């Protein structure tokens, strides 16, 4: 059953990834990318990495891709032909890398042994889900970076306003 899911998700990922670069309309490419992100998230769920799956959907599908779509729509790119001339080169590079990966996999062999885990607070507890574990670690061991990140958000917010806000209406406030 898990194998069937794996082949479904990975098949769709490969297909949509090819479509992202092969389609001529940038909007279609972006939508293919969106479908790919969702299936990568599905792959994470089958690997019991629920947190990663949620982050994948919220951050990549939810935020980054919407940004891509905004840019494509704002620039009003209908068809992009410039990069399709590079197709042979891209195919060559892709095949080379694929061969390398396959050779590594065949030569080293697939191992069913679990990877050596690093000790410390990052280790997921099997009984509780990994989302709980990450949350717990984030609010205890890694509280300091977490708090500093909140300050980074504040400075980024103010910085974005300072750099990007239009001049209209400001003159009256500041003069």
């Amino acid at each position, binding site marked *: 059953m898990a194998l069937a899911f794996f082949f479904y998700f990975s098949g769709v990922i490969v297909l949509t990834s090819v479509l992202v670069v092969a389609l001529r309309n940038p909007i279609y490419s972006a939508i293919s990318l969106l479908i790919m992100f969702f299936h990568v998230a599905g792959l994470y769920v089958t690997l019991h990495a629920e947190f990663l799956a949620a982050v994948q959907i919220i951050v990549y599908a939810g935020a980054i891709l919407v940004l891509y779509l905004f840019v494509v729509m704002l620039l009003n790119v209908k068809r992009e032909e410039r990069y399709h001339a590079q197709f042979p080169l891209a195919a060559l590079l892709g095949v080379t890398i694929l061969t390398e990966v396959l050779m590594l996999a065949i030569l080293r062999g697939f191992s069913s042994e679990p990877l050596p885990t*690093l*000790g*410390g*607070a990052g280790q997921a507890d099997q009984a*509780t889900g990994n989302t*709980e574990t990450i949350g*717990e670690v984030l*609010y*205890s*061991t*890694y*509280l*300091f*970076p977490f708090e*500093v*990140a909140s*300050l*980074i958000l*504040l*400075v*980024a917010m*103010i*910085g974005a*306003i*300072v*750099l990007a*806000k239009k*001049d209209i209406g*400001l*003159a009256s*406030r*500041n003069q």
Partner: protein
Amino acid sequence: MTFNLSMSGSDLLLLLPEMLLTVWLCVVLIVDFAMPRLPKARLAYLSVGGLAAVLLNLLWFDRTGVTGTLFADMFVVDRLAIFFKILIVIATALVILVSVDYVRRFRFFKGEYYFLVLMSALGMMFMASANDLLSVFITLEFSTFGFYVLVAYLREDVASNEAGLKFFILGVFVAGLLAYGISLVFGETGKLVFSDIAAAPPTTGLIIGFLLIFGALGFKIGAVPFHSWIPDTYHGAPTPVTAFLSIAPKGAAFAILLRMFLVSLATLKPAWVLLMVGVSILSMTYGNVVAIAQKNIKRLLAYSGIAQVGNILIGLAAGTKMGGDAILFYLLTHLFANLGAFAVVIAVGNLIRSDEIEDYNGLNRRSPFLAMAMLVFLLSLAGVPPLAGFIGKLYIFVAAINEGLYTLLVVGLINIVISMYYYLIVVKKMYINEPTDRTPLAISTPMKAAIYVCLAGTLILGIYPQPFIDWAVSATLMFSQFTAPAALAVPPTMVPFGG
């Protein structure tokens, strides 16, 4: 499920200076928003007041010997961290004082300027306390974020925008390098805290990781070959921001470099000494030689800053506790001399709207005070006795001699001669050349105050350096057992507040 925060209220007191500053910068932001009619200079004094409170707090920590670690060793308060925090807070207060006139040039968001300066200062205070690679990454990015905005603050000015963009793109690239280096080190050792990494055997991945981290920190301090952003960014940025960039982030990055090289990599010293010697020689020579050709005083100070970093790296190349002391003392002298020189540049720039060295012709006739101050600061930067820079250079060279680094010593001495040449060109223009315009220059009170503080610092550190040397020596006590592989930043027996 267990939730264990293992932190008490008294532990949180270790964070008091940072918390104070966080609250204060929010107050500055709210006051700016709530009282739009308030003169912006008041906001500057409000910020300086907050920094004074933080400074008092830090001095109290220093006197009472407060030490301890928080958040599973990620955040450390020791003498070294307190030293660098005091350095950063003084630099920030001086920068805010010299900004008061300059801020009138901004068309918009004058109040947010002070907020962003304080925010960067907060980031750098965190950097001084960063005791593991994760907090190094996040605090370094935090302090740089404010600078990205500050460098591009003159929105109508093309040079400022260009400077901001260059700084941002290179800065983001360097953040990538840093993250990659940290991931390699973590992958090799499974540890992030500096003192834990010390025990790890040197593998290829670990060495590449540390080289990448050194590259990222080298970018922050502006050492050759990571200096390419410095001239354009220093030139285009608003001058007070340039002044801030030229000392505070360097200090904070040196805090991290000292912890990394003298604690984590202490056992690998023979391997990295050559790296330090190379980077130091390159920075000194390149900075000084290129500075000769500069026509713009900001660019001149930018290149002289690169050369000064080369000098400071001599201390790291020595790699001893004494080298560490020398770095701390040198940074202290550099703080006053460099900020003072920039304060004069800002004062002159505000009045004659030019940063070209040509326009310093006959400054002595127009404002004897500014010319005299500039003379003192430039001579201190060059290392002329009895000014602070002389003691700083002497200290760092003695540390190098003790380790037998004679090549560095020779190159350093040659470079002092080269640097003397271009500093004295500015002095000659100020004192001997005839001015084209003879109108006297008037200086505002906050500017005068900042210049007086810098003058006092430069003279006192040069004439009576003993208490400051003692302070630097006590700040680096933790490195005295640095040859032991498990050198701990703070001995585990030490309890916060000496209790």
